């Protein structure tokens, strides 16, 4: 039974690939997520716009990127879009990161739109009646409340993006899965490399999960900072 005959030595031989893989996977995820968040904020706001020329492009953008597989988007961007625009490829990282940014922006846009829409109309009306302009009210009244509700789904999106980043391996990105594939191909053994990859992904999602739950706590209604500065008190 060679099922139990597990050899970890070769994982160590290829450790450089695994270390690089962790770095690339993390970099892709972080770049993809931050870019996707900023772009998603614009697109999500765009979907709330009353102006047709803002609303429709935003809507179609989300429809396209949520309605096509990420793998197809990666291949389109890497083999068609970037060579088409620049005349040559800019490397797997640019293609992969761009695909992840565009893809996660669509999902984040929906989260942001839903978050803003979930705040009662009365909040806006009250802010307006206090003499705030629409933008000021949005920035100071609506968004802080909406953001609190967005944190859990945004956290989910981060974890999902980390796992989806493994798809970039198809265009030879040296990510974590790529390391596993190379070792499996060189040794014809599948348990060790893929188990290693799975455990490493698990470690990464665990770390991200911790960060997310900290942020959730930080923005929850019952959050009490440990050292509250006395800004002003009601009593003299």
């Amino acid at each position: 039974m060679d099922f139990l005959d597990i050899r970890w030595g070769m994982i160590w031989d290829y450790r450089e690939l695994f270390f690089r893989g962790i770095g690339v996977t993390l970099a892709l995820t972080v770049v993809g997520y931050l870019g996707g968040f900023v772009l998603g904020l614009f697109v999500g706001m765009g979907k709330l716009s009353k102006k047709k020329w803002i609303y429709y492009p935003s809507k179609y953008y989300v429809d396209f990127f949520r309605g096509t597989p990420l793998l197809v988007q990666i291949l389109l961007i890497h083999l068609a879009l970037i060579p088409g625009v620049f005349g040559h490829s800019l490397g797997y990282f640019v293609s992969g990161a761009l695909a992840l940014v565009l893809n996660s922006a669509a999902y984040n846009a929906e989260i942001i739109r839903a978050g803003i829409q979930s705040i009662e109309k009365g909040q806006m009306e009250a802010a307006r009646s206090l003499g705030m302009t629409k933008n000021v009210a949005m920035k100071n009244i609506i968004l802080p409340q909406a953001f609190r509700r967005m944190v859990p789904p945004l956290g989910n999106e981060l974890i999902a993006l980390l796992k989806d980043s493994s798809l970039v391996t198809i265009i030879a990105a040296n990510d974590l899965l790529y390391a596993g594939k190379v070792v499996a191909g060189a040794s014809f053994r599948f348990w060790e490399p893929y188990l290693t990859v799975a455990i490493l992904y698990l470690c990464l999602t665990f770390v991200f999960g911790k960060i997310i739950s900290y942020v959730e706590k930080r923005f929850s209604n019952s959050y009490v900072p440990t050292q509250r500065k006395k800004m002003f008190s009601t009593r003299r």
Partner: protein
Amino acid sequence: MKKGLRFISLGLLLASVSILLFACGTGTKDSGSSKNGESGKRVLVVGTDATYAPMEFMDEKGNIVGIDIDIVKAIAEAAGFEVEFKNYGWEPLFPALTGEEVDFAVSSITITDERKESYDFSDPYFIANQLILVPEDSKVEKFEDLKDKRVSVQINTTGHTVIKELLGKTSSKIVAPESMPLAISEMINGNADAAIGDNAVIIDYKANNPKVKVKTIEDDSFEKEYYGLMVKKGNTEIIELLNEGIKIIKENGKLKEITGFDVE
């Protein structure tokens, strides 16, 4: 209540349509799971990675065709069995053999000592060697010149093995995508300075894309490679059957007719 029913019926409709479409896609030449074909001969399931023109690839009707496929059909005819081809992709091919999903694999698989440790091979039926593909204005003249260059290969092929030896097995200069067409695209799009692959594939690519400005470079330092049919380790019965077929088509000239050269 009515709403719920509507949803369920919509779901059922979708499911039935997808099953119908799926059946259309596979029902063309389904010989069933029985081990015997129409003529009463036994049917062997053959796995391949059909992205490797002209050796094995998909024609516009979705049939798996190519030089390798013709050879296997000739072998089957000579040894008196029938074959059913299944497209697995390159990497899943290996565990599919171990898990007995396929009886043997044909996919331009070079016989190597490393692979022999985990699988058994038939006698060789095809000679190949690695070729280097570079842009027309490239200064590369031999394999050694690639020492400080970025090189694209299909992941876990013999091309990948030779470049790992030159650049180091964890080098970040190796660009190894999923399939040979992708590896060539990496070179065309400037992600790699050269691509390495089996001669048949590289020559076929160049013949089919005369507009693309590339040239091939031969290097004598590449060892001759022999393709074999791969089976699960210890499956001597299938090996003997295949070798018998290979012997017959070598003797009656059928193999030379297909490939254009003799294999010792």
